[in-house]
């Protein structure tokens, strides 16, 4: 194989800065999963159809399989590992647990991050706003009803935790 061209980028992932040597064709998904071992970001299709690879790029949900590593140099990424862990679930994750917001769990990190982006912008969304915010994520197990309930419950939990002025 011909050697691909390489470049060095800086990337902040879950508030930690990384300096990475990347090859031009590498996607953000590849960098996260294979270089940084952040395997919570899933690959379902590698072609912008499923949302399993959703991460937050400067707070905005993106498909990591559709971003080249070169495009994200200097920017900040949040992956599912940047939220809570099993000992300390984030309120959003807690709401998914309490409301059974997953079946197999493969789509789940992507849904949680899409929901996080929504709630960070809009703490009190309508059901339609929730549905729209999650419309880039597929759940083949069809847990949609429970997922939407989970996001509603999370909005409730968050508003109780931080009453708005």
């Amino acid at each position, binding site marked *: *194989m011909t050697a691909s061209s390489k470049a060095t980028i800086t990337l902040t992932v879950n508030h930690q800065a990384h300096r990475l040597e990347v090859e031009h064709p590498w996607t953000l998904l590849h960098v996260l*999963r294979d270089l940084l*071992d*952040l*395997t*919570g*970001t*899933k*690959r*379902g*299709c*590698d*072609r912008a*159809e*499923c949302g*399993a690879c959703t991460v937050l790029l400067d707070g905005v949900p993106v498909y990591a399989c559709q971003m080249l590593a070169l495009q994200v140099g200097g920017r900040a990424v949040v*992956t*599912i*590992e940047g*939220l*809570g*862990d*099993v000992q300390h*679930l984030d309120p959003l*994750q807690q709401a*998914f*647990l309490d409301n*059974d917001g*997953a*079946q*197999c*769990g*493969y*789509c*789940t*990190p992507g849904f*949680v991050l899409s929901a996080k982006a929504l709630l960070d912008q809009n703490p009190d969304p309508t059901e339609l706003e929730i549905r729209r915010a999650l419309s880039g994520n*597929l*759940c*083949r*197990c069809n847990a949609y009803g429970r997922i939407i309930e989970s996001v509603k419950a999370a909005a409730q939990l968050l508003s109780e935790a931080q009453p708005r002025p």
Partner: protein
Amino acid sequence: MPTNQPSIIGKSAPRLRLPEALTGEAKFVADIKLPGMLHGKILRSPYAHARIAAIDAGAAARLPGVHAVVTPNDAPHGRVAPDMPILDTEVRFVGDEVAAVAADDEETAQGALGLIEVEYQPLPFVTDARFALEQGAPPVHAGGNLVGGKPLTLARGDVDDGFAQADRIFEETFTTPAHSPASLEPRVAIATWEADRLTVWKVSRGVHMDQRALAMALEIPSETVRVICPHMGAGYGGKDETRLAVLAAVLAQRARRPVKIELTREEEIVAGRTRHATVTTVKVGVKNDGAITAIHATTIMLSPTYSTTGTL
């Protein structure tokens, strides 16, 4: 009020493994990395039916970074299922496995596939189950296209008599297409050997069924085979097959290193297992008051090319 009320009725069971799925800590098969692990890729048939007259994987094997190759010429002779060799010199659908390669990374393995030279002799094929049952239809496997050699018949009561008593008889034919279960997680298998003991991580709804198929294919005692399915991104039936794991095991044995093979979404759609397409003709006899007197139904199910886990 009885005091020995079972304590589980009416209570929700906690989802023990959901927290780790919610935090990304859950390890699915694709998330597992073993030291020295190689990556496998599979060469697939571009023909619906063909005989492989010649296959030369020499250039692929010599490509730097390639550690193992398997082709129908050198595959072990065991069978994954009664109708499925590990690799065959006859391919039976577009996407059928032709050869496999393990290399340092997926790109190298993919590049090596392009160096495998295959001479195919295309054969006649049939894709519709109705035509497959006609006289002279090209056989998918030796012995004809009806799995098991005869129709499966279920009968109860006197059907002819029921129709004789009917005031009216309706007959319709319905079809359903084949479809991919399309679980969000594509199929993936990892194989590693320690002396003569094999460990496989794979997506699976039946690790013991996979253990038996691996042992049968590799002609080793099943107690030397361990199959682990950690978290699975659902299956819906599409993951009930073992050839992928067998190919990973053969490559791992040859390379003396662990091998992971992850399928792409395209491979899942083209070469994944599907729900049977069906053609069902139903004839129903009824009385004028709507009472049913007889039902006669015939269903032709287009089974997958290989029966793998059974005839249905």
